[in-house]
């Protein structure tokens, strides 16, 4: 078993474990911390694929932006207590059952799917350096890239709209 495989399994186990703990922790702060760890481990996977740029962006966006935003919200709302009452047993069991069914179903169908027996293509070309990504993003994917700005703009206006206090009788 090569190092890479060991690293993969370790990372995979870590990812799943932290993801699970995220959900399982009763304290939202802990959840957030676990989630950050989870994200880091996913970044590790990206690095395994040699996608350094993506890994970096991932950490910046998720761990840096999204999680900070969440933590900030948690703090803002003063939710850092373990005040969540557990769901009724039936829903918890239901959730668990659904989780199991879904995992089994999906894994079954993927096991049933045609396994790739031969080797994997290695084009040898560079396909994931910043340079290539930049070119693809700003040439072929220019329109979606620009359209993303609309998305973000909408989200921005929306967030403002949702939180802006109105002045009465303007």
């Amino acid at each position, binding site marked *: 078993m090569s190092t890479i495989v060991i690293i993969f399994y370790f990372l995979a186990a870590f990812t799943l474990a932290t993801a699970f703990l995220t959900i399982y922790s009763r304290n939202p702060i802990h959840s957030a911390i676990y989630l950050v760890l989870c994200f880091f481990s996913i970044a590790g996977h990206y690095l395994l694929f040699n996608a350094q740029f993506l890994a970096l962006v991932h950490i910046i966006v998720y761990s840096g932006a999204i999680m900070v935003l969440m933590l900030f919200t948690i703090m803002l709302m003063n939710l850092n207590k373990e005040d969540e009452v557990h769901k009724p047993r039936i829903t918890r069991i239901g959730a668990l059952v659904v989780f199991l069914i879904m995992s089994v179903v999906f894994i079954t*169908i*993927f096991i*049933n*799917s*045609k396994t790739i027996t031969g080797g994997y293509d290695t084009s040898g070309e560079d396909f994931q350096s910043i340079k290539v990504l930049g070119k693809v993003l700003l*040439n*072929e*994917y*220019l*329109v*979606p890239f620009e*359209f*993303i700005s*609309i*998305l973000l*703009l*909408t*989200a921005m*206006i*929306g*967030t*403002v*709209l*949702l*939180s*802006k206090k*109105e*002045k009465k009788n*303007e």
Partner: protein
Amino acid sequence: MNTLLTISGLGVFCLIAEIFNLRKLLIPVAIIGLLAILGLTISEFNIPSSHYNNMIVVNRFSVSFSSLFIVLTIFLIALSGDFYKEHQSKLSDYVAIKIFLLAGAVAMVSFGNLAMFFIGIEVLSISLYILAASKRLEVNSNEAGMKYFLLGSFASGIILFGICLIYGATGYFNIDEIFQLSQGAGIPVWFPIGLTLIIIGMLFKIAAAPFHFWAPDVYEGAPSITTALMSTLAKVVAMATLYKLIQGMVPAIPTIFENIIVVISVLTMSVGNLMALRQNNVKRMLAFSGISHAGFMLMALLSLSSAAGTLLYYTTAYALAGIAAFAVIILVTKNKDNEDIINFNGLGKTNPLMAAILTASLLSMAGIPIFSGFFAKFSLFTNTIESGYLFVVIAGVINSIVSIGYYFKLIIAMYTKDAAETPSATPFVYYFTAVIAIILNIAIGVFPNTILNLLSA
């Protein structure tokens, strides 16, 4: 292509207008702008083209549906003026979001690449989350927003997963390439799984059973005008996109998958109709009615190759009736704290025109002749019979019968009960919108050719 650009431009313009305090002009300008865009869009009708590495594909399908979306948006924005009278400072935001939403909608029907599709649907969804939650001081609106947001994001995740699997199977996001590959042998099973997941995600968006649970709650809780938007524009967009997705990615639906569609279609229309029977809240009732219509629209997928025109017709008929109905509903429930049927009592006496319009739109939804809803259902039935699914049609017929029950509940309330209060003055814009919408509805009912055959040539 131009459509998308100009719509985005118009959206940005609306935001800028706020800076220069041009609120009074906002809605007229937006409407005029949309009309201009409508003209621009229609001018591209006979010029199929693709832009930017097939990111945007303009063809008759996309142009006709985009035009429909634009028309619906015009109506909705026209209604916004009065609806947001109390929220002048946010008006431009609302209008801008709606226009961006339109941009997302247009992207969804004219995508040539799954990236555009995904971003389009996200623009649409996020706008809707915002609009649903936009009455931030009202718990119901918050709840609606939250429910829609959680379930919607979940569905987005499913769609994303589906896209990912398709990418994994084919290595492309470009649907032309995917279409090519999907015909070849040896495509991994990831592809059908991915496609199934995307379709499930879209079924969620059109509120098909059993993915419909969000719809009634969200429709009820959201501000009425947003409900109008969701039940007309959003539903139509999702349906058109679903059609385009399937048609664009596979040459034909395998029988086994058609079975699924049959089951979901029948289930959806039945659930929608049966649940609507016992509703007291008009918006909620129309939500269930919308669910049942989604079931009908799904029948179009059973005759995939020939149903585009029918689907366009059905969606147009449904959306126009919906706009007319909601114009009346918004008007009637304007200063009320709920939308119960009781508010409609005696409308036939206090405001006969509006009552007539609501009646007409409900009759159209019920599929009574000369209203376009009849032709819509009829051509859908014909198509489906031609594809050999007679029993789905019979289920549809039985559902149409059931649907009379609740549509007429409202009509009866309007004409037989006495009004509790005296009518207040009606802003002209409601009349205008409702009348135009219902006239369009009847017009395409009398001349169904105009739309029915748009996509068949």
